[in-house]
């Protein structure tokens, strides 16, 4: 009964979405307030129905109802409760349901919180949201029904893939989807603006909080996924340039560009057309990411060709929305009026430069990810594009971008003084030079580029601090006055500085962990000791243990620093009988921002075991930086000016159409 309820609720949501796709558009055309307001109710009720549907599927998993096909294939009655929850989205059908749930959440949020939006704009935005929602409801109902029943229910399920039975995976997909799907709002706003043919600075102010929220979640989601891959996959890397990772990086890059260009549009009424295009692109890349991951095209072009139902459906959605969006853009964008002139050296100019590098970086990831697929489909030739390609093309784009980063916020709008800014950045330059010298002195000249990377990281971090000092007038005006001014600064100023600082932190972590990490690959017998970077690990022996739905063989190691025991590390190998699969659980020991990383290999007959041991200096900064970036986003989001929407300057009534 529960699965049928869930299925039915989803069909009802589709019905509502179809109504919401048409009624508000007609309402906006006829200026019929009733029809337009209908969208508010349908958006909220749609969310309720999708939530019911999702809750029903969750209930099936929690109750281990193996008469439902997806539950049978991805769950097990002995699995811990938390993984019963995460299995809901640990498979294709369930994750698509999560996708539409989040879409519905955003739709309802616009309906509920967009009280100060002009009526027609709001109606159109909600309609476009519903077009997307309808397409995905149809996709789920026709090709990926999560509520499909089995005629002869088996007694036990086939278990969730062991690699997914991990707390990190509990939050990674929802975060990522909040990011992906959040960009749909920016997309809907862009399409609505193009349909209306009217766009102004207030539009950017309405779009920015949604984009900012999506960007925050995506940042956190990518960092979470990276950390999960780091400790789960057992070889200590944190970014693999895997197509699935690239699929989430592309919307992030486009979204970051969009955030910055929306600032120009909001403050200076310039870059309108470009901002609209970025809004369309950011969500298009989210859709492409969904297609890449969901269609199976990545595993192999041939797998896609043999069972193309789902792939072709998503491809059709993709073409419809990306093609439609870009066509509408090509048709309507030239009618939008550009405004806000500026000199090349100005805050606007810096943000344009930021956009140039970010979009090029995005294009690089795009071409690197899709080129092998396209080449194989067109000529049959198989090539690989992996980490070494991206390191060579992507990294050189981020270096100038990060170098320019501290300059941007210090430049004046319209026309800036680059020499003056460079002077004000003296402290940041000094910090960078000191960092470079210290690193060279401490680490030697073996890898000459890495100390420069450290210098760049310090330049970015110090630049962010200088930005806040300059704004509050610290060191120029009396301390008390500076403090008062500092408190008076808009939160978004702190948000910018925090996010920029975070990127510097991430860079520092990446440079240190990849350059100065050490590695030991050895075979140890009990009571033998291996040393790495000042730590001694003694192998105490193997301990077999039983988990809820697995058996594991843990290896116990005592860690000593300078002869003093500081803890125990227990990496293990787990075997899951249901799927007859084994996973390797790495053991981590966090020492400040650095980590010891220990992963097990095969046990030999003579009682010895192969291990792979890493010391990863400052590796935690890589993710900590991302968390700081997301916090910066949150700070900026809490800015009063964004929270209350566009202010209502009495002098410009036409900017703020009545509802």
């Amino acid at each position, binding site marked *: 009964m529960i699965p049928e309820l869930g299925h039915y609720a989803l069909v009802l949501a589709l019905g509502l979405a179809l109504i919401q796709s048409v009624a508000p558009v007609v309402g906006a055309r006829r200026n019929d307030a009733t029809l337009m307001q209908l969208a508010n109710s349908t958006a909220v009720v749609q969310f309720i129905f999708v939530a019911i549907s999702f809750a029903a599927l969750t209930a099936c998993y929690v109750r281990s109802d193996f008469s439902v096909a997806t539950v049978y294939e991805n769950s097990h009655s002995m699995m811990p409760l938390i993984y019963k929850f995460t299995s809901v989205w640990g498979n294709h059908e369930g994750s698509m349901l999560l996708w539409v749930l989040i879409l519905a959440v955003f739709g309802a949020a616009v309906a509920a919180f967009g009280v100060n939006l002009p009526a027609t704009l709001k109606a159109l935005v909600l309609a476009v949201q519903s077009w997307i929602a309808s397409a995905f409801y149809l996709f789920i109902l026709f090709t990926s029904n999560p509520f499909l029943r089995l005629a002869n229910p088996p007694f036990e399920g086939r278990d969730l893939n062991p*690699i997914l039975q991990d707390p990190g995976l509990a939050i990674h997909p929802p975060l990522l989807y909040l990011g992906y799907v959040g960009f749909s709002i920016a997309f809907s706003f862009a399409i609505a603006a193009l349909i209306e043919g009217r766009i102004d600075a207030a539009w950017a102010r309405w779009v920015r909080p949604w984009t900012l929220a999506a960007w925050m979640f995506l940042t956190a989601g990518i960092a979470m996924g990276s950390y999960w891959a780091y400790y789960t996959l057992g070889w200590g890397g944190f970014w693999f340039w895997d197509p699935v990772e690239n699929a989430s990086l592309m919307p992030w890059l486009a979204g970051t560009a969009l955030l910055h260009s929306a600032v120009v549009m909001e403050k200076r009424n310039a870059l309108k057309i470009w901002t609209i295009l970025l809004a369309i692109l950011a969500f298009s890349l989210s859709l492409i990411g969904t297609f890449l991951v969901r269609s199976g095209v990545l595993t192999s072009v041939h797998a896609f060709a043999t069972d193309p139902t789902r792939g072709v459906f998503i491809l059709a959605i993709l073409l419809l929305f990306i093609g439609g969006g870009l066509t509408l853009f090509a048709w309507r964008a030239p009618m939008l009026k550009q405004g806000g002139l500026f000199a090349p050296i100005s805050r606007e100019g810096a943000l344009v430069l930021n956009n140039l590098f970010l979009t090029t970086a995005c294009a*690089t990831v795009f*071409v690197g990810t899709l080129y092998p697929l396209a080449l194989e489909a067109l*000529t049959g030739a198989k090539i690989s594009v992996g980490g070494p390609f991206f390191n060579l093309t992507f990294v050189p784009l981020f270096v100038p971008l990060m170098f320019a980063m501290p300059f941007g916020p210090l430049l004046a709008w319209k026309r800036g003084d680059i020499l003056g800014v460079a002077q004000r950045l003296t402290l940041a330059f000094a910090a960078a030079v000191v960092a470079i010298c210290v690193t060279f002195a401490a680490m030697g000249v073996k890898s000459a580029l890495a100390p420069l990377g450290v210098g760049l990281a310090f330049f970015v971090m110090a630049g962010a601090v200088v930005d806040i000092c300059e704004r509050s007038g610290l060191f120029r005006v009396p301390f008390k006055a500076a403090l008062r001014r500092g408190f008076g600064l808009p939160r978004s100023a702190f948000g910018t500085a925090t996010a920029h600082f975070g990127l510097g932190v991430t860079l520092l972590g990446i440079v240190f962990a990849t350059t100065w990490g050490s590695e030991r690959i050895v075979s140890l017998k009990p009571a033998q000791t291996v040393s790495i970077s000042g730590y001694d690990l003694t192998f105490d022996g193997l301990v077999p243990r039983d988990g809820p739905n697995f058996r594991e063989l843990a290896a116990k190691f005592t860690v000593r620093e300078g002869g003093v025991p500081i803890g125990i590390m227990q990496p293990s190998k787990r075997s899951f009988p249901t799927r007859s699969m084994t*996973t390797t659980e790495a053991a981590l020991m966090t020492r400040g921002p650095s980590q010891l990383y220990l992963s097990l290999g095969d046990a030999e007959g003579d009682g010895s075991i192969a291990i792979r041991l890493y010391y990863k200096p400052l590796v935690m900064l890589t993710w900590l930086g991302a968390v700081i970036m997301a916090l910066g986003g949150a700070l900026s989001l809490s800015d009063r000016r964004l929270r209350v929407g566009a202010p209502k300057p009495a002098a410009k009534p*036409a900017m703020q159409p009545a509802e």
Partner: protein
Amino acid sequence: MRWLCLVAVLFTLVAPALAVEPDEMLKDPKLEARARDISRELRCMVCQNQSIDDSAAPLARDLRLLVRQRLEAGDTDRQVIDFLVARYGEFVLLKPRFEPQTFLLWGLPPAVLVCGAIGLFFWLRKQPPADAGSPLTEVEKARIATLVESPTDRTAH
């Protein structure tokens, strides 16, 4: 999102053990370091986007051993890579070579940057300088006069 590829490929094939195993490593640390560097550039063909240095698949192990054999036989890095490409095709390279079928791949990122920069340059030049602005034409003066008369219409710049 990474999990999908893993589900599909990695863990249905093998139980993940270690990538590089202790018994594979060469005695000569210099040679071993070269082997590791080469391994990072080569793809484990049965895995998804993993280098043979990272992969625990049996094939990756065979390839790692092969790389080490060639190095011990006195091959240069280049010769080792050429040998593997001759045997397994371009697919084995994680960084594709610059040749006709990859011109677009390598060319596109710099092309986007250069074209973007050129486009920006001309777009900015087309803009009149932000501060000065040319003197007003007669038409503009007339327009200002009408605007001043109707203070409510202030949307136009």
